[in-house]
């Protein structure tokens, strides 16, 4: 659980002093994991697409031009500082103007800039050509997760969320007890990655359900803002299979640092098999909406859904982080009439951070999480919500 510290600015200061000892002792004892020592990465990745390599070489071209200019400029500067020291008896010259020199150092940079602009324009024009894609995927940013929806496919629609999979024990190091050891892909791992086929042009249509996010995979050299109410496009032809990791790069609220992007590139045949399996699963979920579940089933599934979608704000113990994120334990809504509870979960609450989950979760998950909230943390209302209730409410 993340403690609520923002209301009192002194709390972090006090806890700073308290924890500084632990941090310093970690340094002294060399507890910074040895496996990290190989991580002095200096440069941009070349990536696995033609455009990412082009971008990388553009980056290196400009870098080396800057280095060359730097060598000349800093060279003259350092020479002057050494050669014309007053302490060495330097007598100042009296010149203060030289039209020829000034024209030269205006024109030469201009020519260099033209040399940079030409390849940049070429690469940019290629990046902007998103036509003739073979697969379209809708990428929707949410606070704080990504939703992927496969478009233009026959059969049941495949749509799912990609949530941070790093357990909270690994990143919540507030307490003095030893935190769980951080995994290899700490903060860059998700429960379900985006899956795309290799060597096919995949177009991403990016938008957002709340604030502006930005979807970035460094190895694709793809970074595009996901803007609520608008659709941006970007594309990739991934040339190597494997798992590629990135992050949201536009500040999007409290857990901006905790919504990674993970893309798995599969061979086209494997991708087709994967998609067929996802479509079958989607069909099963749609069918499940007509089933009736027991209290235990709903509570178990509800706990899982709650931990993924609700816990960041309302907290594991249901106490929330008032006033922004109210408590659910003992809340009038969670213990009140069932229709009101369903309504707020489906439609959200305007003007607050409470999102409309009706479009995000399946009927089964919605029924389960509402049942869970009505019967957890001492909210012993005792009633159940079935998927059919959700479908009915959504139809109204």
């Amino acid at each position: 659980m993340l403690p609520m510290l923002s209301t009192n600015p002194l709390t972090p200061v006090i806890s700073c002093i308290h924890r500084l000892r632990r941090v310093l002792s970690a340094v002294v004892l060399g507890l910074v994991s040895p496996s990290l020592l190989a991580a002095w990465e200096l440069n941009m990745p070349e990536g696995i697409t033609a455009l990412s390599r082009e971008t990388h070489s553009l980056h290196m071209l400009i870098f080396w031009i800057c280095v060359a200019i730097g060598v000349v400029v800093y060279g003259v500067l350092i020479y002057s500082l050494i050669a014309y020291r007053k302490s060495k008896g330097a007598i100042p010259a009296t010149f203060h103007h030289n039209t020829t020199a000034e024209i030269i150092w205006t024109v030469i940079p201009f020519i260099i800039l033209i040399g940079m602009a030409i390849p940049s324009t070429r690469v940019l024009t290629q990046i902007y050509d998103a036509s003739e894609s073979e697969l379209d995927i809708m990428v929707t940013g949410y606070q704080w997760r990504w939703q992927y929806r496969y478009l233009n496919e026959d059969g049941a629609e495949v749509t799912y969320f990609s949530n941070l999979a790093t357990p909270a024990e690994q990143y919540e190091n507030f307490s003095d007890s030893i935190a769980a050891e951080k995994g290899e892909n700490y903060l860059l791992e998700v429960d379900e990655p985006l899956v795309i086929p290799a060597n096919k042009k995949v177009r991403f249509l990016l938008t957002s359900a709340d604030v502006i996010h930005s979807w970035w995979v460094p190895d694709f050299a793809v970074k595009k803002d996901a803007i609520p109410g608008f659709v941006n496009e970007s594309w990739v032809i991934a040339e190597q299979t494997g798992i590629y990791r990135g992050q949201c790069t536009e500040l999007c609220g409290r857990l901006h640092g905790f919504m990674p992007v993970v893309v798995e590139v599969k061979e086209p045949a494997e991708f087709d098999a994967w998609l067929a399996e996802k479509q079958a699963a989607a069909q099963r979920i749609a069918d499940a909406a007509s089933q009736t579940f027991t209290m235990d089933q709903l509570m178990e599934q509800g706990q899982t859904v709650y931990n993924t979608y609700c816990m960041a704000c309302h907290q594991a113990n249901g106490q929330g982080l008032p006033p922004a994120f109210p408590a659910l334990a003992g809340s009038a809504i969670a213990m009140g009439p069932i229709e009101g509870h369903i309504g707020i979960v489906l439609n959200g609450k305007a003007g607050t951070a409470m999102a409309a989950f009706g479009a995000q979760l399946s009927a089964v998950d919605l029924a389960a999480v509402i049942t869970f909230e009505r019967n957890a943390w001492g909210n012993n209302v005792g009633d159940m919500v079935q998927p059919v209730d959700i479908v009915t409410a959504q139809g109204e």
Partner: protein
Amino acid sequence: MATGHDAHHHGPASGITRWFYTTNHKDIGSMYLWFSFAMFLLGGMFALVIRAELFQPGLQFVDPNFFNQMTTMHGLVMVFGAVMPAFVGLANWMVPMMIGAPDMALPRMNNWSFWILPFAFTMLASTLFMDSGAPNFGWTFYAPLSTTFAPDSVTYFIFAVHIMGASSIMGSINIVATIQNLRAPGMTYMKMPLFVWTWLITAYLLIAVMPVLAGVVTMMLFDIHFGTSFFSAAGGGDPVLFQHVFWFFGHPEVYIMILPAFGIVSEIIPTFSRKRLFGYDSMVYATSSIAFLSFIVWAHHMFTTGMPLAGELFFMYATMLIAVPTGVKVFNWITTMFKGSISFETPMLFAIAFVVLFTCGGFTGLMLAIAPADFQYHDTYFVVAHFHYVLVPGAIFSIMAAAYYWLPKWTGNMYDENLGKLHFWLSFVGINVLFFPQHFLGLAGMPRRIPDYALQFADFNMVSSVGAFIFGFSQLLFLFIVVKTVMGGKKATAEVWEGAEGLEWTVPSPAPYHTFSTPPAIK
């Protein structure tokens, strides 16, 4: 109040009311400078909270929401509270003395423009103690994070920005009026010291863009409280419109924070090179060109928002062009030193470091201008490193250089040269340890504004945090040096520096309360 022909016989009023009622440009300049230093320390404390949290992976000290409040408040306080008022303070002190004017043209407005600032920042800082917490949407406050999804304290933030804007506009009107009307006879435009020139251009930039900032926060206010939808697509608005309007203010704002620095460095380098500034005319033209270009490059902050190709290309080309006049300035400074007779007093050290490190920030700026490469750099630590290189060893170092350069004129005492050099070297090392590794972090893929990071970013973050604490605590030494100089020290001559030229060096040190009540003769 001092009026008429006997003004120069009057000293300052006594007691605390001197500071409330003063219309004297030197008093007001001092207040601006002390205020900005206080804000520098406050903003620095916020930065140290950030760097402490980022010392190691994991959340150690603060909740992510509080972390976001720290990044936001750090940016706002440093930009609007530390850098801008410091330059206005220097302008207040130096512009009248440099052009041979008795005071600022609009002394009462001068008092007003300063005294509303403490209220603005008290209002802004008070949000830290509110239930909702302080603004947490970054100093660029992009909608809808800053509107629909903002904490309640956003309204206080909006009014604080309004007051800061009003203060800046009044300050700039005053500077323009002073420079255009109160120059001593014979002080033609092309004889004005470059600090005066750069401030004249800066003042026009401020008058042009601060109302745009006021406009954008007012649109936010209406979206939040009065049901409009300027920045909400649901009501027919556009979140990207916010960014266009913000950066139409924001990019000139960047130059507002660096042009006076150019002026300061153009004063200091000739003095300690004992040689006239090389290419005075081209300096003036280059500054004007930069100011003009600053109005047509704003959307290079928005390359990833999905602008059309033609827009991307236009803003890429225009941004690259800025390298030309900026290069001219750097070449002129270096040529001024070339074949000079250079000595290395503290102001000169800061000025040389400015030239070296600002150029470094210029290089990364050029890299960022390249739109396809910017897709990789955008919103990563590479950008953080870039703009801190132009703002800290750029703007901040120039302000420190100016403080050491003119402190003997202000106080009549020489500062402690050894301590000054110690302060310089601590700052120089600290700043590079702090910001240089951030280039690598950004290129390797670390986004900005995150409270926790993947393990491959751990080492450079730790190095960066160590640099932050070195740099941060070194500034207490600066405070000590300044206070020590105000209290006493070796008496300064009128000229102070061997190679110094300009009207400010013709008056005694410390400068009398009223200077140039009768205009000086200009050669």
